[in-house]
């Protein structure tokens, strides 16, 4: 089951994590299903959000060996030996700001598990801080007009494609660790290595990218983020099965999940995930191919087995997307509850009082009020929905959010919520406050030729 030469055998790719913060015990049942199926297989773990990488970069400033996904070893510990024994490579973007550091940590884990021979592939070159590429960026259409001040950059990473992952697998990596790459590339990489698809076989690359897109958010295609009781019911929410894609050499794609697991895979769950975070369905841009899903047909072949066909591909874009993270000021938040008779009037008075206090103190920033129990997420910053909604629930919670360039101002605003204990309306309770520093991200486009992705193979004996 090696990935060092092309094969036409069916390839199974399981996903054991759909985001940083996913269930830590999710990969186990997926690995068991891949082992039971017996053929060539790979496992992907997607853990890297846009913002996560900037936080990791900051972490690395404090501790040079840090800066990768902190849960990586917890995810790998239960499955690493099993995957190594059955030739199932693990591909993950858990490297974040420090893929090499993550690889060293994985090798340390392998030593403890009695796997001294483990080979870990590292993909680098996504981090463009301090390179020429940073000087050659054009704002992405969604951030038109953005101006970059290089000295303020916390993180600057380009979305790499599947080729470096495939290269690491061909060289025998049993775990591949990347920083920023497109999420579907985590799955497309093993397909390229296994099937030997050409880099311009656009329809197959499109089919593989579509499969990767369906896998990348884990349970979101198997009944997670889907249940709506009485409308869309999902069995076994506490034991959701994470997805497995069965990929054919011709680009055939079937989505399923481990037998006996919770959740569901059908036309509805697959359609929701197919369109997730998509803009133009005829042009989903990835580093490897431009995917067109407008002609895709979805067929329920058997319970929890859904086939997709008709993905079309066009040549990959000449410029790649880069995410640049910058300091984004501070956010001060505070909440306080009012319940029982006249709760709405007391909460409204508390809100007006807070806004007047911010004005009297002359704090510079932007404030927003929410009345949790009346409206907590649908409203605009001006509070139009809150003011239009006259209802007076018996138990509600006032929230102040205050964004400022000044940490002191954000802290002071949050403190004003605390001060409502003694100086606010009657019966306020349960204050919580929080002050966080914020990161602003902008997207840019960078010419492909500016980048030089690097692949290395590490083992306990050193670098191969």
């Amino acid at each position: 089951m090696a990935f060092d030469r092309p094969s036409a055998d069916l390839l199974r790719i399981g996903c054991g994590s759909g985001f940083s913060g996913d269930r830590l015990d999710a990969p186990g049942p997926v690995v068991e299903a891949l082992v039971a199926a017996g053929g060539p297989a790979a496992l992907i773990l997607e853990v890297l959000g846009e913002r996560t990488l900037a936080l990791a970069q900051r972490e690395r400033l404090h501790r040079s060996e840090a800066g990768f996904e902190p849960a990586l070893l917890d995810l790998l510990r239960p499955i690493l030996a099993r995957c190594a024994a059955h030739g199932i490579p693990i591909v993950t973007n858990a490297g974040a700001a420090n893929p090499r550091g993550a690889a060293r940590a994985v090798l340390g884990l392998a030593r403890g598990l009695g796997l001294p021979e483990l080979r870990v592939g590292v993909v680098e070159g996504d981090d463009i801080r301090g390179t020429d590429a940073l000087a050659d960026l054009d704002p992405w259409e969604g951030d038109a007009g953005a101006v970059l001040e290089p000295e303020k950059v916390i993180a600057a990473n380009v979305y790499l494609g599947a080729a470096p992952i495939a290269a690491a697998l061909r060289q025998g990596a049993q775990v591949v660790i990347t920083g920023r790459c497109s999420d579907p590339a985590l799955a497309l990489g093993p397909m390229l290595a296994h099937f030997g698809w050409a880099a311009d076989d656009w329809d197959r690359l499109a089919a593989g990218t579509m499969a990767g897109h369906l896998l990348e958010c884990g349970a979101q295609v198997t009944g997670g983020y889907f249940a709506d009781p009485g409308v869309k019911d999902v069995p076994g929410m506490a034991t959701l099965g994470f997805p497995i894609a069965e990929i054919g050499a011709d680009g055939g794609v079937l989505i399923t999940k481990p037998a006996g697991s919770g959740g569901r895979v059908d036309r509805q769950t697959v359609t929701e995930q197919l369109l997730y975070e998509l803009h133009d369905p005829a042009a989903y841009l990835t580093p490897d191919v431009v995917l067109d899903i407008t002609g895709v047909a979805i067929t329920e072949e058997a319970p929890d087995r859904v086939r997709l066909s008709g993905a079309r591909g066009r040549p990959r874009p000449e410029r790649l997307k880069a995410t640049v993270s910058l300091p984004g000021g501070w956010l001060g938040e505070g909440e306080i509850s009012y319940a029982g008779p006249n709760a709405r009037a007391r909460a409204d008075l508390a809100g007006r009082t807070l806004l007047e206090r911010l004005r009297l103190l002359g704090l510079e920033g932007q404030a927003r009020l929410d009345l949790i129990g009346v409206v907590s997420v649908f409203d605009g910053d001006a509070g139009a929905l809150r003011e239009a909604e006259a209802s007076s629930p018996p138990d509600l919670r006032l929230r102040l959010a205050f964004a400022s360039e000044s940490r002191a101002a954000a802290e002071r605003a949050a403190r004003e919520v605390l001060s409502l204990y003694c100086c606010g309306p009657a019966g306020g309770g349960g204050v919580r406050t929080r002050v966080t520093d914020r990161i602003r991200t902008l997207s840019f486009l960078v010419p492909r030729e500016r980048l030089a992705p690097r692949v290395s193979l590490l083992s306990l004996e050193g670098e191969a």
Partner: protein
Amino acid sequence: MSAVPLHRLAHARAGDKGNRLNLSLIAHRAEDWPLLAREVTEARVLALFAHRGATAVRRYDLPALGAFNFVIEDVLQGGVNGALNLDGHGKSLSFLLLGMTVEGG
């Protein structure tokens, strides 16, 4: 013709990219797709999100999937890294769309 909650006819999921939101809208029954195409227009969706500062809506039609994809600009009040809103991703906004009432039947 009678007023029907969109929630009865379709399901939806939200995704974000910066200050842009995409909302899929998927008919529960394929035969309701034309009704949704007639009722859930770009203009109505823009009006639904106007209080959040939405500036433009583009609807992509996917009849083969019984679905639509709406892309809404500037609706996330700065997005996950800039918003004061508790839900900076706008993940809950699929249900703001499903709260719309349409003329069915």
